[in-house]
């Protein structure tokens, strides 16, 4: 993967400036691609993930999704879950049970629902910040107790990319 290669091989650093700050990722399998690789194609021609065929390719800032195949949800501005990655299914359950549900039926935050809702609504509205916020699962599964969410904008259509990561202490 290009982002890892750049991190691992500093001599490729000069390439970085040629790349955009954005990536594209599959809403289902989570594979990440460089935006630039797809730049010459109209977006709708590369809309469906060519790897899994079960997700749509969305755009996000490079910081929004640090790695391929991470666990994430995509949430609309009205705080409904609109996509569930395969990784997130292992944490939250089947996609079919989650699509269209309010996010708060799935996760909350010790900082308060208001704070979490505000961050997500801002991201889904197109805000540029990437924020980390601790979260708690509403129906916690064993092994997923200390988590945080990385919240950033993605699209089109606009949505909030909520990437679930272990909480680093």
């Amino acid at each position, binding site marked *: 993967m290009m982002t890892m290669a750049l991190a691992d091989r500093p001599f490729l650093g000069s390439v970085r400036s040629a790349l955009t700050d954005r990536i594209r990722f599959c*809403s*289902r399998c989570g594979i990440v691609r460089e935006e630039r690789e797809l730049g010459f194609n109209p*977006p*709708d*021609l*590369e*809309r*469906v993930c*060519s790897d899994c*065929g*079960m*997700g*749509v390719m*969305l755009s996000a800032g490079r910081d929004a999704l640090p790695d391929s195949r991470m666990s994430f949800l*995509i949430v*609309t501005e*009205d*705080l*409904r879950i*609109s*996509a*569930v990655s395969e990784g997130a299914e292992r944490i939250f359950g089947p*996609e*079919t049970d989650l*699509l269209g549900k*309010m996010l708060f039926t799935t996760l909350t935050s010790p900082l308060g629902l208001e704070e979490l809702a505000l961050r997500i609504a801002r991201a889904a509205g197109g805000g540029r910040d990437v924020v980390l916020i601790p979260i708690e699962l509403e129906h916690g599964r064993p092994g997923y107790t200390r988590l945080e969410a990385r919240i950033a904008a993605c699209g*089109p*259509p606009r*949505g909030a990319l909520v990437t679930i990561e272990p909480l680093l202490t």
Partner: protein
Amino acid sequence: MSGIRTNAAAELLGVSPNTLRSWERRFGYPKPRRTSGGHRQYDLTELEALRRALLETHNISSAIEVARQRGEGPTSAARLVEAYDRFDETLADRVMEESLAVRSVERSVEDLMLPALEMAQGREGREAEFELALRWATGWLHAARRVTPAATRSEGVLLFDSSPRLDLESLHVQALELALRRGGFRVLLLSMTLAQERLSRAMRALDPTALVVCGSGATLDVVGRLVYAVRHTGSAARVYEYREAMPVSGSHAIPSLGSRPTEATQNMKAIVDGRAIEVTEELAATDLAPATPARAHA
């Protein structure tokens, strides 16, 4: 129906033929026909609906769901709901315009607008979208009413709306008003809560052939007082209900005009033309349709 083969369909959507077949297995969509030689033949309308839906959603199953609903016709109620959900009145207007290209005003209201409002109603957290939908639909119906030709029939119909506020039933009443006007009737729509003494001038002006109880908030008491007030003006207009607006049924029920604007309009035409209609004529038996004010009061 125009159809294209698998490779062309896959290219149109920017996916591999295998992906297209896997969607068919998993979601049953897009659903190709088979040629006599057994080859898949995809419907262009479905593919175009899916291509558009893929751009508007975050996952494949939602895109397929949206496309499936849109694939039902050139314009569907789902597209109107989509416009409501985006608070996009221009898009809602456009959807109705597209519908009017292939449907009559009555069909566009019945097959598109009212079903879309029903779909938009009662969704948790979508109250604002529903209110926008109601207000937009009210505006659309009013605009359509303004361009309705003058009445071609001498008979008048007085609609009494019992809806306590702007809600789905009140939109059904407005749709009925539009359909009756377009059917050539002289129509007046009033609130059922109107004070009795305010009715007489309206009754004299319209001289209605029929009174129709509509809306979601009728009570026996209010209907009884209304009919009394109408009879008090000397009117012998017959009383009907629309969409089960009456709070009672059975032997006390008054005849129904039906539950759809076109159905009610056809029935009203049949009534005034003296033809048989498919409603139960129990008016004579009801306590709510007395011949004289005194009996109504009793």
